[in-house]
């Protein structure tokens, strides 16, 4: 084969002088992304780029019913079944469950068992080539007996989880309030839409085990699922992360299902099997953000102080539990917004419907409830004729305030700072004043939207909106204590320093920030620190790569491990670590430090009473959005966004900004265009042509302000950044639409249909609320 990878003519090469980052000063600097050159030259190996000679192609037979009995699987006699592998539930050697919080989701529905949702896996096929696989699929027929389905989470009596938080005396406070305002808010499904689809390759091993190479966030979740489902021991199950093209929560739990499927096929075929989803299958079958219905009743004083909140949250879990209890828990804890209120009642439940299971997506329950909280607060401000900025100044949490779980906020409280920084940078009050005048002129002129008498200039209305949010860093409640993560550092006999963690890189920068932190703690150059592959055969279980916990929790463990290693070496050699570690390694051989998580001092949570420190610290975010609304078409153009995010100490400013910018655009998509439509429990827009996300032309100019209120219980003061921007973008955009049009959108997304209906003061033409399924058309 000719060499196609090089150009013949010379071009300018990048040469970066080593040592541009001073040893010990890597944190806060911006070294280039560690795996950046591989990604930029096309040499980075994503799952589908990996070659395994003799590998077969796998495929999943899925249900087309929302709820049914799986009566049988018929194989056409005309097809030569000796050329392919067929796997059903009867072939599963271990337990037929994808192990997670509850053991309710089967790997494959057993024949005779109950199908709980559309696109549920029923059987598996593998073939040596794609043409044979297609022919085999066409020769498989699924027999079912339909059962009545439940699509409305409010009507479902199967409750996955329920929580109640209470403080003070809400009933008495409502009686004493000057004003009481009520509102209902609904949000639908949102797809993570990583650009790399889910992908897994299973390679059987000689010991009867299997090695999985895949696109994934949490190696040890899959490791556990393989052990349970296939009856393997710790060593027989091995999981290796390939380069991963985005996750956003979407590769937290469903990869366990795909890995099990690939492994079952590989085990029976006795050869590697590739299970590479196309976009349609990925959209139709994998988890989405939970739809939610949130009702607020709020009592305020005439000067805008919150004195009572009564909040009801109902989330649609879909057909299986997945991570729903923890999504709901985070949603409930954040439901009041970042505001002091002495009398609070938050009731939250998540129920089962016969729709594909919902799961993790950046923000994990908080974007749903904080959209409701922020939109409701903006409407309260409007009713009291207060500025949205001013009402937040009067209520935002300060040091010493107590949250609904009874957590006293002792340090690292920066809600007011992010609020003021964003409002000032965006000139929020000045713009709002201008729009007030424009709105008054429009209504005073007698022109109405759609009127042919209006001039072109009146057709577009501009608005500016503000939102504020908090986001708990790390696992909720006692989650981190239960995880008991381990991160390790190795100094090899050859003098190489290597980081060993299961924390995955999926674009957010794990492989860059970990070496920064370790290099500083050891006093060596950034380049001297290597990072081992995310392979369960070598790295410890440092927990899942989720919940904005990687920088704060695992980063903190690595610094402690580095401090121990440094002390050990310096005590033995009498010199600095940097000057003596190579010599030490040569004479002492490999040294490995395992650092296990220990609870942060003074942080505790009671799972039974649901009281205590829900999170060790919170990040704080404010967002100001400027929009143009076309009053004739209802189209929204989000023009500018100013995002101020407190993430604790910044480890890498470029990567942190990248997280804020990317999260902000996902929130803009959530606010304006991203919507799953369902019929009879099936996603209708399950292709990229119909499920749309923002392009470069839809994206606003985003100005990021990083605020640093350090978290003192970790040595580097970082709090995490990934999810924070997702909480504020949507309510800011909706507030800006209200500023432009005078109409409040309470259902996401704020689509043209909903905006035109809201302006006209009539119910939306589209009859469906977000997340609802229209009945089957028979």
């Amino acid at each position, binding site marked *: 084969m000719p060499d196609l990878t090089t150009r013949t003519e010379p071009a300018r090469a990048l040469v970066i002088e080593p040592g541009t980052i001073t040893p010990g000063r890597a944190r806060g600097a911006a070294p280039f992304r*560690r795996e950046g050159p591989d990604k930029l030259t096309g040499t980075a190996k994503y799952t589908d780029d990996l070659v395994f000679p003799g590998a077969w192609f796998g495929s999943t037979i899925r249900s087309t019913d929302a709820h049914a009995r799986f009566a049988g699987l018929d194989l056409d006699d005309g097809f030569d079944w000796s050329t392919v592998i067929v796997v059903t539930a009867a072939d599963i050697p271990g337990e037929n469950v994808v192990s997670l919080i509850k053991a309710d989701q089967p790997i494959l529905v057993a024949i005779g068992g109950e199908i709980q949702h559309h696109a549920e896996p029923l059987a598996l096929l593998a073939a040596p080539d794609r043409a044979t696989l297609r022919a085999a699929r066409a020769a498989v027929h699924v027999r079912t007996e339909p059962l009545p389905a439940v699509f409305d989470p409010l009507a479902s009596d199967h409750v996955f989880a329920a929580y109640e938080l209470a403080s003070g005396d809400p009933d008495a406070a409502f009686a004493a309030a000057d004003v009481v305002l009520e509102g209902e808010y609904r949000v639908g499904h949102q797809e993570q839409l990583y*650009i790399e689809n889910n992908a897994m390759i299973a390679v059987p091993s000689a010991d009867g085990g299997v090695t999985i190479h895949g696109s994934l966030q949490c190696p040890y979740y899959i490791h556990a699922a393989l052990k349970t489902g296939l009856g393997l021991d710790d060593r027989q199950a091995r999981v290796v992360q390939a380069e991963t093209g985005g996750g956003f929560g979407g590769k937290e739990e469903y990869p366990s299902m795909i890995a099990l499927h690939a492994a079952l096929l590989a085990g029976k075929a006795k050869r590697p099997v590739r299970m590479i989803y196309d976009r349609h299958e990925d959209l139709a079958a994998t988890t989405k953000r939970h739809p939610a219905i949130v009702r607020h009743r709020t009592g305020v004083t005439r000067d805008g102080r919150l004195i009572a909140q009564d909040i009801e949250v109902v989330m649609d879990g879909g057909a299986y539990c997945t991570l729903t209890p923890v999504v709901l828990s985070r949603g409930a804890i954040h439901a009041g917004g970042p505001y002091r209120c002495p009398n609070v009642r938050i009731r939250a439940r998540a129920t089962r419907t016969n729709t594909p299971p919902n799961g993790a997506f950046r923000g994990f329950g908080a974007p749903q409830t904080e959209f409701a909280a922020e939109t409701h607060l903006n409407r309260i401000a409007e009713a009291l004729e207060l500025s949205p900025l001013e009402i937040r100044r009067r209520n935002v949490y300060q040091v010493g305030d107590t949250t609904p779980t009874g957590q006293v906020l002792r340090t690292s409280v920066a809600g007011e700072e992010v609020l003021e920084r964003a409002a000032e940078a965006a000139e929020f009050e000045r713009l709002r004043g201008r729009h007030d005048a424009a709105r008054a002129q429009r209504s005073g002129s007698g022109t109405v939207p759609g009127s042919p008498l209006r001039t072109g200039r009146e057709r577009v209305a501009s608005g500016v909106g503000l939102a504020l949010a908090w986001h708990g860093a790390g696992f909720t409640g006692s989650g981190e204590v239960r995880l008991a993560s381990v991160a390790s550092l190795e100094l090899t006999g050859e003098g190489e320093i290597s980081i060993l963690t299961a924390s995955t890189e999926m*674009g957010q920068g794990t492989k860059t920030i970990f070496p920064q932190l370790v290099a500083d703690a050891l006093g060596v150059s950034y380049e001297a620190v290597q990072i081992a592959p995310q392979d369960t055969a070598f790295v410890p279980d440092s927990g899942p790569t989720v919940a904005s916990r990687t920088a704060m929790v695992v980063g903190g463990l690595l610094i402690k491990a580095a401090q121990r290693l440094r002390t050990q070496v310096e005590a033995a050699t009498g010199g600095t670590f940097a000057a003596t570690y190579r010599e030490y390694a040569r004479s002492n051989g490999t040294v490995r430090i395992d650092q296990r998580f220990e609870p942060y001092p003074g942080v505790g949570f009671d799972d039974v009473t649901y009281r205590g420190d829900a999170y060790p610290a919170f990040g704080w975010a404010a967002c100001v959005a400027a929009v143009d609304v076309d009053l004739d078409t209802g189209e929204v153009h989000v023009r500018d966004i100013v995002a101020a995010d407190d993430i604790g100490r910044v480890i890498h400013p470029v990567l942190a900004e990248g997280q804020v910018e990317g999260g902000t655009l996902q929130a803009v998509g959530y606010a304006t265009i991203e919507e799953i439509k369902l019929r009879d429990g099936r996603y209708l827009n399950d292709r990229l042509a119909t499920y749309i996300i923002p392009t470069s032309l839809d994206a606003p100019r985003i100005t990021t302000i990083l605020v640093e209120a350090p978290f003192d219980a970790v040595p580097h003061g970082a709090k995490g950044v990934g999810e924070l921007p997702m909480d504020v973008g949507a309510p800011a955009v909706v507030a800006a639409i209200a500023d432009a049009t005078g109409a409040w959108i309470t259902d996401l997304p704020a689509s043209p249909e909903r905006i035109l209906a809201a302006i006209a003061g009539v119910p939306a033409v589209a009859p469906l609320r977000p997340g609802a399924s229209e009945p089957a058309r028979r």
Partner: protein
Amino acid sequence: MTTYHFTVNRTPVELDVPGMRRLLDVLREDLALTGTKEGCGEGECGACTVLLDGAPVDSCLVPICQVDGASVATVEGLAPAAAGIAGVGVSTATALGPLQTAFLETGGAQCGICTPGMLMAGQAYIDAGGGLDDAAIRDAIAGNLCRCTGYTKIVEAIARTAGTVAADPRPGGPS
């Protein structure tokens, strides 16, 4: 099957494949150039963007019969063959071209899966003499979806390159 002749990154290729085979599959599977990615297979995401006679196309929508006699440029041809890169903490035998360098400096690549296609769309814009105008750059990459960056740093990387590179020879253009 018919024999098709074309160039990939200026190297001549002769291939016997069915005429309707997707250019994307020819690149990834027949020529082992896996730098070009598949994101949707229906021309929506732009991850598979390559340059066909200098113009950006979705290689998932181009049958190989349309490539006969043409020149194809992929991400693998963007970098000059040169010495390693210091300063990123890894040894690699690959150097970077100007646009790739700008992506590395600005943070224009995060998960990296849209990056090869984004680079090719950006390169086509620069090759066509595109300037620093934000709206024009956004228009040039409007067919390439990115879910990580919010596009901010990608636009910055292309602008930075457009501002400093004067008439770099087309990587896929006729020699």
